[in-house]
């Protein structure tokens, strides 16, 4: 038994490591093909990535990506592909910023209010896809992609002066009304040169713990995982699959609503055209690479932030920063393949092991097992 467990752990780690190694090799080949020095490029990335201000940047970015990864992972554990995390995130962040800018309450009310609005809006936006899936059989992939597009239009419409938009002093930027000071979350000051680590990182860690606990230690989590593994078996076991689809979409969307909170509460304090886009899609990559595991997703988020940070430096050194995009793409591609390969190998391997052990047992007992 011990042996099987250890092997399982090894296999679990093997896949992402394999994927990352492959992607480095492929990237190196691409660099060589374009007449560049691959190891020099990697060296630049590494050297730049471990500098203190880079580390702060990476932690901040990773906080956002981690929450995005969790939002996607909740869907994945259910066998739902919530590709609309990006739209849910932007809708959540936008309305949270609008509400936060419109009222002024003491901090201990203001911040929870903003967070709550973000979760509600994100959850409702995802819930539309959940309801469409359970009542009309619309694939959640299609529905959430459409909702992403609608989210862009809705925000574009509302984010205008006279509606929910607000023109800044220089008359160049439109954003929501800036949050009052009571809506600013604490930061960890890392020194003048290095910048701040977002205070929201604490909440992100708690979210990771909650994610693990709910999935692995509660009845609800068991039902959710059961549906993800076999819808028919879950149904027969007494789970209402339809209700579970809607519930998990709501939770995934609420989590997606939180993605914008580090940026909003710790940094920008308003939602404008500058607000990062596409974070939801990063979440998909991060969840895939992290294997929906709370620790794995954290490592993947850090890796993603690291790659993003170091890509800027590559440009200064006369490399194309797009090379990092190639790397990220190859990681996602190979991670998907590697997991499937390792998964199949693992099942087969375990069947063999069990067979062998049973055969050995049977021999010891001098009896025939059928």
């Amino acid at each position, binding site marked *: 038994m011990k042996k099987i467990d250890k092997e399982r752990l090894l296999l679990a780690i093997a896949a992402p490591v394999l994927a990352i190694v492959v992607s480095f090799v492929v990237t190196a080949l691409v660099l060589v093909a374009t007449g560049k020095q691959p190891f020099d490029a990697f060296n630049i990335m590494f050297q730049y990535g471990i500098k203190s201000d880079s580390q702060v940047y990476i932690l901040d970015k990773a906080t956002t990506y981690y929450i995005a990864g969790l939002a996607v992972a909740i869907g994945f554990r259910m066998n739902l592909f919530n590709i609309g995390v990006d739209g849910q995130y932007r809708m959540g962040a936008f309305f949270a910023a609008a509400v936060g800018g419109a009222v002024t309450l003491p901090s201990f009310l203001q911040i929870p209010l903003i967070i709550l609005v973000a979760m509600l809006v994100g959850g409702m936006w995802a819930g539309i896809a959940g309801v469409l899936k359970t009542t009309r059989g619309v694939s959640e992939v299609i529905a959430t992609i459409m909702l992403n597009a609608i989210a862009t239009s809705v925000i574009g419409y509302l984010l205008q002066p006279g509606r929910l938009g607000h023109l800044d002093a220089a008359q160049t930027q439109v954003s929501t009304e800036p949050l009052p000071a009571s809506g600013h979350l604490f930061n960890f000051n890392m020194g003048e040169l290095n910048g701040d680590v977002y205070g929201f990182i604490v909440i992100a860690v708690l979210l990771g713990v909650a994610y693990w606990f709910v999935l692995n230690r*509660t*009845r609800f989590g068991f039902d959710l995982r059961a549906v993800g*593994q076999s819808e028919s078996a879950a149904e*027969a*076991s*007494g789970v*209402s699959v339809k209700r579970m689809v809607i519930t998990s979409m709501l939770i995934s969307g609420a989590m997606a609503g939180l993605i914008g909170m580090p940026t909003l509460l710790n940094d920008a304090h308003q939602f404008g055209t500058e607000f990062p886009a596409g974070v939801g899609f990063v979440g998909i990559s991060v969840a895939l690479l992290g294997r929906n595991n709370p620790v794995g997703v954290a490592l993947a988020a850090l890796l993603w932030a690291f790659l993003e940070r170091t890509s800027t430096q590559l440009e200064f050194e006369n490399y194309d920063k797009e090379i990092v995009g190639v790397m990220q793409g190859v990681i996602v591609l190979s991670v998907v393949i590697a997991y499937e390969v390792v998964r199949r190998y693992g099942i087969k391997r375990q069947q063999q092991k069990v067979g062998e052990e*049973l*055969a050995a*047992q049977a021999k010891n007992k001098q009896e025939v097992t059928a």
Partner: protein
Amino acid sequence: MPPALFPRGECAIKASSPNAVELHGITKRFPGVVANHDIDIIVRRGTVHALVGENGAGKSTLMKILYGMQKPDEGTIIVDGEKVTFHDPGDAIARGIGMVHQHFMLADNLTVLENVVLGSEKLYGIGGKARAKIKEISDAYGLGVRPDVLVEDLGVADRQRVEILKVLYRGARTLILDEPTAVLVPQEVDALFDNLRELKAEGLTVIFISHKLGEVLSVADEITVIRRGTTVGSADPKHTTPKQLAELMVGSELPSPETRESTVTDVPMLGIEGLHLSEIDLEGIERIVLDQITFTIHKGEVLGIAGVEGNGQAELVEAIMGMLDPDAGRIVLGDDDITHAPTRKRREDGIGYIPEDRHRHGLLLEAPLWENRILGHVTERPNSKGALLDPSAARRDTERIVREYDVRTPGIEVTAASLSGGNQQKLIVGREMSHLPKLLIAAHPTRGVDVGAQAQIWDQIREARREGLAVLLISADLDELIGLSDTLRVMYRGRLVADANPATITPEELGSAMTGAASGHLEHGDDTGGEDR
């Protein structure tokens, strides 16, 4: 079924031609199980050769080996006198071996012609030549296939003929038919058998897999019996009775499921009244799957339902489990009306469920055994306390189930997928019994289970019944049904058409009632059976 109308023995004419297929010493091991060992079969050209055996005897594995879907660990395959090794079905087709699967593999939105040429466009193109060829084959063997009809407009029997044509189109001279009659009604079965005789008359060879003895005796020229993974004998259909064949198939050492001393009480446990359910099928026609089903199971009673698969048994089970919502009628468990209650409530109220398809409805294959022990009982102790799981208690209890129900496994952390079918089933039985159900729904509880485990499962059902358990038993194994049940009902096309006393009825009599030939109360020895010998 009127098998006696057809002469048998045309095969003798071609006795001198070489054998179409020979299998020698075929052995195939799966983890923890030997699916086939030392199989020897000789199939002569131009015959219908039946391969019979119980569910789980190893017929399908053997045919997958012959069709190149699995590689044997030992043994040789000889086709037309030549030793061959198949790496995939393509190799088998190249050697003239084709397979018609139990579940049709047709694209509904394409025409018959398109389905037939799909993947074999190189043979005769996709146009006029292909159509002519299809016509030619269809006429030659009397298949009556219309090339330009959409498959979605075809009924089951027609689809099956398209499948057969597909195989012939690819040049097959030997056809493997896997349980071809399972989905057909009796008249369609007769038509299929006519087609098979046509094929045979043209010199083609048919390997026919079945566990229905009457059909086998009516259509086959030769019979090979498989039991527990190996060939145990062959029979000449002209000189064999269904009883002899059944004995060969089941073996005399089979533990008897007999349970005679009655424990039936007069306290109703499950009451079904006028249950009605209709479905819209693929052709868009409303089909009644459950029609005015009414019965009562008392405490300590085993009610057995006999019937050819697909006559509504699965839907009945799903309606009682709450997975299908009936259109009309009432389901009463004890004193509670549970007609529209959610599945979880029913389980908590004491319905245990041994599903027909354990992979689809009973297990999470990639989850460890202890999580599978939780499945279906997540709200009950020892699996959870309040809203939280109790993994350590669940693990301990899984250890106990593994011990008490003799689940052969190296531990409880292995995935359910790594156990053999019999051990998976023992785990399910152990899990359901551990929650002391008031009503057990057992659908094919010993399907694919080895003989030892079978006896054990029967013992457990019997023991629980003594303590007042009510059981709804659905099985294709007539001996199991007759042996375990206190009351028998026959289900045919969604209705309970007949009842019988298991103490006096024989499998043959029950079997004929299952084809719809008899109804009402079946008395032993009366002539409702429609038997031909």
